[in-house]
């Protein structure tokens, strides 16, 4: 019997690739963003540390997109994922 979790793609921008063995994309199965992060914590610990701090919070200056939508406009960590969704972690445009 197959997994009930939707299969989603994580698109990795260049600064994050060294922490995932050079990969530009990862495929994981998760039904929410929170579950996706938990999967990364277990399977891609170095990558996870770049995305979340020690408390498990998303890093403050990262924006997370599901397809073209920022998760702050969706359901935050509880945002539900569907098969084929693409997650992207992008540095917020800030600083100088």
């Amino acid at each position, binding site marked *: 019997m197959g997994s009930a979790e939707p299969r989603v793609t994580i698109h990795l921008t260049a*600064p994050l690739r060294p922490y995932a063995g050079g990969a530009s994309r990862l495929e994981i199965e998760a039904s929410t963003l929170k579950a996706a992060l938990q999967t990364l914590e277990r399977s891609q610990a170095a990558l996870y540390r770049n*995305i979340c*701090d*020690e*408390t498990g*919070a998303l*890093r403050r*200056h*990262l924006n997370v997109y599901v397809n073209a939508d920022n998760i702050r406009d969706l359901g935050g960590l509880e945002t539900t994922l569907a098969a084929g969704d693409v997650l992207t972690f992008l540095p917020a445009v800030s*600083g100088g």
Partner: protein
Amino acid sequence: MADRVVVTIGTRKGVFVAEAPKTRRGFKLRGPSGPGVPVYSTLVDTRGKPRIYASSCNPFFGMKILCSTDLGKSFKETKSAPAFPKDDGRALANIWSLEMGDAKNELWCGVEPASLFRSRDGGDSWEMVPGISNHEHARKWEPGAGGLCLHTIVRDGNRVHLGISTGGHYLSEDGGQTFRASNKGVGAGFAPDPYPEFGQCVHKIARHPAAPGRLYMQNHGGWADWTGPGGPRPNIGVLRSDDYGRSWRSIAAGLPTDFGFPIVVHPKDPDTVYVLPLEPGTRTCPGGAPAVWRSENGGGTWSRLGRGLPKKEAYFTVLRDGMTIDGLTNPAVYFGTTTGQLWVGRDGGEKFDLLFDSLPPIHNVKVAVV
């Protein structure tokens, strides 16, 4: 044979390394290294083959430790950076201090929020030092303008002195197992009690290895005109201890202002100490004319060292780790500014020359002869 002077420069846009022969002429600059994010701490580890460490304080992807084994030609991340235990509730916000430990490959690291970490494998793994990180005062410390940072680690065998802003001076006499606030004589200008047990805004602590009982402190001064509760607090900014940091007394008389960030001790003479006074309000050079001030009698009297520096219209800041001194017989003083200049004062600071004039804002300058 040690025949090169290596200066590490932590900036807002990465780390630079400058290298010159022992004549300190013809410095060559390498960098910037790292991903273009602030570097608040560097360390030239002179045990064995020299290594350069740098904190890489990435606001997007978190804190890293960088290491170079080729004197700054290339840097690689260590396998991990300090991190709080998952159930601690705190998250690393910055890395402020890197120092060598006693054992080969042992490193100590001070961070924000103020806590101490220790590595025994050259920075590849880290453990939190609970004696200070979980000290009963730790959740009562408050951030200074730079954040709540443990910025100074001064070690002398089993004695460990820590500078915390704003926590004050903490002393361990059991190798870092336990710490106690040790601030007798260290004033605070921003609290009703001028001499609290802890909570002072210590900016930097320095000592000479041959005189471990003598410590110098640049504290947050500039409170001579304070009119709030407790009244004025003149000369609390520059202090000295002669009892291993158990008590402190002012040595600020004679300086143009008792506010500043760095304090540095001559490598051969424990009586010779350097500060760089700043206007307390603007934190810039008094009168637009920067100068290093030197005492050759342990803070009894001070003399101005400004030869070669701008005489007017210079309003930079030199941060707490922005000044250092090399270990050569006739040492040179180096300081980096928030406007990106690196100055060298050869002959103990008698005359300053501009080494580099357009770097990013400088947080940190360290030097070693390798």
